[in-house]
């Protein structure tokens, strides 16, 4: 089966600019997640979707981050305006059955804010 697709792979922007990331999960996976991973650390959950509804966005900095999952399939994560501390890898993952069998991650988008 095809994996989780993410684009772009890399992005360099100046602080205060905006950026958007795209994710296409594995077909049939109802749950989609966006994680932020600082270099050398474990991923931190930003937002979790069940189909096209948000089930957890408690750690999403809502003043600058937004995410949507239209039609319960693809998802986009946006940052506006970006700050230097947003430099990280943004990982998208999807799962079946609430993650009981594990998550499948995409390769991530490495964001550098200068």
């Amino acid at each position, binding site marked *: 089966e095809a994996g*989780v697709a993410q684009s772009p792979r890399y992005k360099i922007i100046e602080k205060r600019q905006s950026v958007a990331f795209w994710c296409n999960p594995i077909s049939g996976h109802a*749950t989609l*997640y966006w994680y932020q991973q600082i270099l*050398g*650390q*474990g*991923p*931190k*959950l930003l937002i*979790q979707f*069940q189909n096209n509804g948000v*089930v*957890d966005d408690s750690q999403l900095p809502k003043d600058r981050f937004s995410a949507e999952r239209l039609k319960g399939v693809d998802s986009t994560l946006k940052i506006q305006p970006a700050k230097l501390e947003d430099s990280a890898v943004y*990982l998208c*993952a999807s*799962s079946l*059955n*609430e*993650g*009981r*069998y*594990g*998550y*499948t*991650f*995409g*390769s*991530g988008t*490495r964001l550098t804010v200068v």
Partner: protein
Amino acid sequence: TQLLEQSPQFLSIQEGENLTVYCNSSSVFSSLQWYRQEPGEGPVLLVTVVTGGEVKKLKRLTFQFGDARKDSSLHITAAQTGDTGLYLCAGLFFSGNTGKLIFGQGTTLQVKP
């Protein structure tokens, strides 16, 4: 708030040595998942342990889930250079019917030839 403490954070060993990575929490998890991540890639699931006391083996890797389902360990026998990477433990818990996975800080393993 569920937290997972992973240790050690960094490990540099020679090829052929054995090592153990620990993952500890004060919280009970439905299951504990171990992932391996290589540079420029997303984490890849190695194993899921579900039952307290469960032991699973994956070639030279042995995973154990604590009896109380609060801790886990990963033991690698005779490490190889190909084992180099970031190892992540992740605990699955449920809030209502919603499953949530939290990650430890990760263990960066370097195996030198």
